[in-house]
């Protein structure tokens, strides 16, 4: 975290009857950060966001914004504004009136209001649509209205609830960059809720991954991907092959994991701080697995770590061509399916692999992540 802490969440819990939506979450978000709350639907991320907005009151814990306790402050008295999932653009008001609404309620004089409204509309490139009614706008434009309407109030924090989920794929991608740009320009702290990991990884400076109301990991996108804390995080962010095994060797500079599903043990080039003999999981990302054709029993030569590790024989069961890459499902001798991803770097490449091909799978000693839970 670079700047000073703007939002401090302390032991925040929200219960709906017996259901615990948010379970003892503590979190700090820095000033000017683009922070993403990520998780599957029903994980409590939206409830957390709504508590930041003041639309839900916490059952326990505190929310401090810029040092002030906001836990019991109603939404209209918080230095926080929100872009709703449905955008919630007022249908009976023109674009201009929508954007001006917050200022009008605050009693900002008409002249000042006008100038600020046009600045906000310029920021989201909607100057030419000021007089339109929301039903004359596309989904993307309506979202811009919602964005301008929230930003015009110059909040300390802007909350975004699934901001891109209702847009089509192309627009979503363009909007990702634009949102990041706008955030750069206005310098407001953005807190975004999303269930889409690509969105979070692409836009956010830091992400918090939640499941069942519990915070699983808070990290930068690359750390979240490369160094997940546990199996849930590893599995949720991108795709991963998980092998359950026993920690056979655990030295400071290397570790060996015996996996029943694999012919050879997994060798990792770093130590694991787990009790030797304990059950652990080794995760290997599909793009970090090497695949070569297998002829007979001769094992391919491997560089790096000792031979006899990190190697598995298999047969391609299935493949999915995705344009820029192809995902292969390789069945190992024991029946375990391993996903392997190859980039299609060339067109009409000499035919890569076919379903049914016998292959060797291997990986570098640096590639696996060892998970204790």
């Amino acid at each position, binding site marked *: 975290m670079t700047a000073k802490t703007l939002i401090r969440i302390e032991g925040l819990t929200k219960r709906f009857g017996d259901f615990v939506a948010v379970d003892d979450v503590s979190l700090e978000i820095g000033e000017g950060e683009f922070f993403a709350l990520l998780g599957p639907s029903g994980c409590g991320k939206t409830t957390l966001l709504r508590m930041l907005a003041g639309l839900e009151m916490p059952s326990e814990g505190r929310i401090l914004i810029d040092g002030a306790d906001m836990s019991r402050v109603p*939404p*209209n008295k918080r230095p*926080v504004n929100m872009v*709703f999932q449905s955008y919630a653009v007022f*249908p*009976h008001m023109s674009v201009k009136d929508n954007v001006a*609404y*917050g200022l009008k*309620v605050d009693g900002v004089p008409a002249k000042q209001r006008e100038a600020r409204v046009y600045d906000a509309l310029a920021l989201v490139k909607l100057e030419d649509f000021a007089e339109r009614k*929301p039903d004359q706008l596309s989904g993307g434009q309506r979202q811009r209205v919602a964005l301008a309407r929230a930003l015009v109030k110059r909040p300390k924090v802007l909350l975004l609830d699934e901001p891109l989920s209702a847009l089509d794929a192309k627009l979503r991608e363009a909007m990702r960059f634009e949102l990041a740009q706008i955030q750069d320009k206005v310098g407001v702290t953005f807190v975004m809720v999303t269930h889409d990991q690509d969105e979070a990884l692409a836009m956010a400076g830091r992400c918090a991954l939640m499941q069942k109301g519990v915070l699983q990991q808070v990290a930068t996108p690359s750390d979240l991907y490369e160094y997940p804390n546990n199996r849930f995080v590893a599995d949720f962010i991108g795709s991963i092959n998980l092998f359950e095994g026993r920690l056979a060797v655990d030295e400071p500079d290397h570790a060996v994991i015996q996996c029943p599903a694999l012919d050879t043990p997994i060798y990792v080039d770093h130590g694991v701080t787990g009790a030797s003999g304990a059950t652990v999981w080794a995760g290997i990302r599909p793009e970090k697995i090497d695949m070569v054709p297998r002829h007979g029993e001769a094992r391919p030569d491997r560089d790096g770590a000792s031979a006899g590790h990190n190697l598995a024989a298999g047969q391609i069961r299935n493949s999915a061509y995705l344009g820029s890459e192809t995902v292969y499902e390789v069945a190992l001798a024991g029946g375990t399916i391993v996903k392997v991803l190859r980039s299609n770097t060339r067109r009409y490449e000499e035919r890569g692999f076919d379903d049914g091909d016998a292959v060797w799978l291997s990986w570098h000693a640096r590639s696996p992540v060892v998970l204790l839970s």
Partner: protein
Amino acid sequence: MTLRTRSREAKGPLDYARNWPLRIWIALVLVFLYAPLACLVAFSFNESRRNIVWTGFTFDWYGTVFGDDELITAFVNSLTIAALSTLASVVLGALVAVALWRFRFPFKPVFDGLVALPIVVPEICMGVSMLVFFSRVVPWPTDLPWPLDLGAIVIAHISFSFPFVAVIVRARLASFNRELEEAAKDLGAGEFRAFIDVLVPHMRPALIAGALLAFTLSLDDFVITFFTSGPDTVTFPVKVYSMVRFSVTPEVNAASTLLMAVTVVLTLIGLKMQGKDVAKMGNG
């Protein structure tokens, strides 16, 4: 040209209007619905005192209507009562709808049922109960100046109109996006401001429809009014009834035609206002 080409096309499965038996059926329905009304209007222009034989065209009966002070008083009474009870019913009905839609409270289903009760209770029972209520429980003074003397009738009309408003408004509220209200609060509006700025505009078409219904219900009502009106507080339907007791003259026809015209015009205005609104409120 286009018409001819179309008629030669094969009949589609949903082209009911091109089906002969169905066309006759529709024609019959229209005749049964509108023939009596058409006769009423036609005979209001009949020269004869009797409503049976057509003898010639005249506007005289309309003159008689406007010359009949009692009838005019009754008409003004009816409009006043309708206006007052509509106003009150819309406010009350909308508040009931919002309360039922928004809040959870003990005995809510009971309250919900009780609100709808005036819709299903036979009018005659309502009428008798109102008579008893206003003569025994809360006697409404008879010597009040106009329009306070209409109070009992207005209250009776409110009691049977506001449930209709509540039902209509509640149906409309079902399509309200709660995020709109939250957005208003998020942008700095308090409870009341958010209600006025966001919820009321959403309810508008239903408020207009409810007002229209309340107005026509009140204007039309005979049974309940009959039991609550006194000698000085005669409404139009009650007056017409008393006139018909002697004989159905074209004067009654003319008066009824006027009432019909007022109702139709009001309905058209209401529908027009509502149509614009509904189109605008389409997405939210």
